[in-house]
């Protein structure tokens, strides 16, 4: 028995779509009561009850933050084309994952800096710095793995889109680190995005590789 972190983490169930409730009586409602009690037919009375109960549940759920939007935690459109497994398996892993891909890092950003920033949303289990396949030097991305899903979600909410080393970094769910994924997949050894980009970025080797070659 040890104080080892567990890699478990189950994604919270996606919020069910709220069924529509109609507590308002339909336009053709009977006239308003005038002193005497108005007794509607039994089945409409029952459905009014249910609708009311639903309505009040909504109120309380809303107050309990039960149906709150959480779009920063959503998976992006990107899918790893080298993923070993079918699309269904990939989706499942992404929804449960405690691992994040981090992009747009400076080539000079260190593991220590990444650790400090990402520790703000929880205990970091592991960081794998992305490397140029040829040079074996940092090429501007990394993976951050947390012990719990909840901590990774907070990173998506509060660290994604903020700055590290003066650059806006981007985080995305990752299906899990596998040996080999720490290398850039561009032809020149770095990331694909650095093959084709036209701008000059001194923190990412200057011009894109294609531009450099021409």
């Amino acid at each position: 028995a040890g104080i080892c972190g567990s890699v478990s983490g189950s994604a919270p169930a996606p919020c069910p779509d709220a069924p529509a409730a109609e507590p308002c009586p339909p336009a053709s409602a009977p006239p308003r009561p005038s002193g005497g009690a108005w007794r509607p037919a039994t089945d409409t009375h029952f459905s009014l009850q249910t609708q009311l109960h639903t309505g009040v549940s909504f109120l309380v759920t809303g107050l309990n933050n039960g149906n709150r939007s959480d779009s920063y935690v959503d998976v992006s459109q990107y899918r790893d084309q080298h993923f070993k497994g079918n699309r269904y398996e990939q989706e499942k892993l992404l929804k449960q994952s405690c691992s994040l891909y981090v992009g747009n890092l400076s080539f000079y950003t260190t593991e220590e800096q990444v650790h400090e920033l990402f520790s703000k949303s929880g205990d970091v289990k592991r960081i794998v710095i992305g490397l140029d396949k040829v040079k074996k030097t940092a090429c501007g991305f990394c993976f951050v793995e947390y012990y719990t899903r909840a901590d990774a979600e907070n990173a998506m909410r509060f660290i994604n889109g903020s700055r590290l080393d003066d650059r806006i970094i981007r985080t995305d769910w990752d299906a899990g680190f596998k040996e080999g994924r720490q290398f850039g997949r561009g032809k020149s050894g770095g990331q694909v995005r650095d093959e084709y980009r036209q701008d000059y970025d001194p923190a990412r080797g200057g011009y894109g590789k294609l531009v450099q070659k021409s």
Partner: protein
Amino acid sequence: MQNARLLPEKLTVYTTLVGLLNARNYNFGGEFVEAMIRQLKETLKSNLYSEAVYLVRFLSDLVNCHVIAAPSMVAMFENFVSVTQEEDIPQVRSDWYVYVVLSSLPWVGKELYEKKDVEMDRLLNQIEGYLKRRQKTHVPMLQVWTAEKPHPQEEYLDCLWAQVQKLKKDRWQERHILRPYIAFDSVLCEALQHNLPPFTPPAHSDDAVYPMPHVVFRMFDYTDAPEGPVMPGSHSVERFVIEENLRCIIKSHWRERKTCAAQLLSYPGKNKIPLNYHIVEVIFGELFQLPSPPHIDVMYTALLIELCKLQPGSLPQVLAQATEMMYMRLDTMNTTCIDRLINWFSHHLSNFQFRWSWDDWADCLTQDIEKPKPKFVKEVLDKCMRLSYHQRIVDIVPPSFSALIPADPVCSYKYGEEADSSLPGLAMATTVGNAIKNRASNEEILIVLKDVPNPNQDDDDDGGDGFNPLKIEVFLQTLLHLAAKSFSHSFSALAKFHEVLKTLTDSDEGKLHILRVLYEFWRNHPQMISVLVDKLIRTQIVDCAAVANWIFSPEMAHDFTRFYVWEILHSTIRKMNKHVQKIQNELDEAKVKLEKQHNKKRDSGDEEDMEKNSEDEEGQLEEQIERLQEKVESAQSEQKNLFLVIFQRFIMLLTEHLVRCETSGVDLNTTWYKNGIERLQQIFLMHHVIIQQYMGTLENLLFTAELDHHILAVYQQFCALQL
């Protein structure tokens, strides 16, 4: 109610809707109210007190919409306030029932007084009596600043009472809350009202967890907003309503920082108040809330940045003004809050190229470096460096600040080239280093290390298996030196030679020594020390108690007031807590499984095969449960022991200081002491849920009446939090 995303701050919109529906259909109104009462009962039973507050407020506002008859609302409030007459209840229970009544009055006070002024006066008198006699021992522990100036940090019920008193004096004229129902008054006043059924507050039970008391955070008043609308006074009900609504917005939208910022900035009625100041005050109020903020710290940093983006011409200035004010008041700020301020400020700066007018803070340079202001700046620069690199920090501060710049985080290898040739273990360090470079196995390393003499033993010892500090130093220094390049390199090294490390640190002395060696080697790189201590615990090379003992050891006295040391200690405690929780969860799961087995067996009939299999399964489960039960007990014992060690060491250290001051007639309130006593407080605050389990032991063994009253006061304030 078709919009599922209901927003508590838009309460009056929904009550108006319900009012109009009730006017059209009396039965609807009746059933709605009944459903709400049912929900209220449920939330109270489920310890959902902030939700219950909104439900009661909603019901009160339904009085304004002619859905509920005022006298029946007064009756409900009377039942709530009668909780103050209950005996043997925790104070936080009666506190809550008083709070829920007072906090509804801004919405419904006027209407209730118009209909039932005699009863309301009686109610308020009862409340006043209660407020006068209730205990306020907990207050000092929850205050962000200890100073009364410029803004007193008021206990929340006291502040709310003052606000309600003022509202009453103003004849319940409240102009801030938007009341759509006023526009529909002609329709609504025709509606038949319902009486609330008599509502008895659920009785107190042992598993009830009432909200903790809190202190109202104020940092601005009308003198701070230089132009534009005036900030409502601290005892105006408008202030209360604005803060409630802003907190509601944050509670609704904290997960989506852009939306949250936009919602805050589009607060209705914003033209009549200095909204930016209110927002900044509420945000810092939450961030500094003791024991802990309502949401994760980093959320507030992210939110403030979004607010700056949306209002680049005004919000950054308010934020700078707030930062300046907090810097000025560091001398009386609670240490835990200073920690959070350091983390916020350094993280915030890292998003803005570390631009700051450091020269404005040149006053701190003339002070002793342990004083709050220079200490704050030093810790901020430490954190800024962690997010960047050493040279960057040198570049961003004026040269006059050089004394506060962190050390270059390089390692200190004692067996390097400059080492004295007579240094014990020097030759062995080279041997070990070569062995490691040549990919020696754990066994081979242990064999090499056998030749290291033990400075603690003069004669032949037990074959070199006992605690040998020199072995640990030679091996660990060399290993760490070879792996110094990055965190990952060091982690790999520790993993690769786990066996050697386990062997060397088999005793308590060994565990303590490995931490000492680690500290000596990496003393200029606190971040590295933190991550390596974390790894050593997780791989069970050291245990939590060893870390606690190390932190309180004389060797660490020099760094005792540094932030990173406390981060390590709290991280250690959290790991211990998570470990216990994990095993507890496993036990609970196994028990549930067994329960299911029993039910299956009972329901399955009498098929022989089924019974045999289920018997085996049951037997296995029961065995597993027994094992887990033992594991839980052992883990809890370790957890209790950790807290005992920590509290014991605190008591020893602080008592020593107090005795020394008394005998030499020196004022006990030194900077060191303030740090020490607040760090003790911080242990209680940050882990109050767990510590509450061990109160009995703590009181019997440690926090007894013989203790110096300064230290005992911390314990008593803590006890008062849930009384």
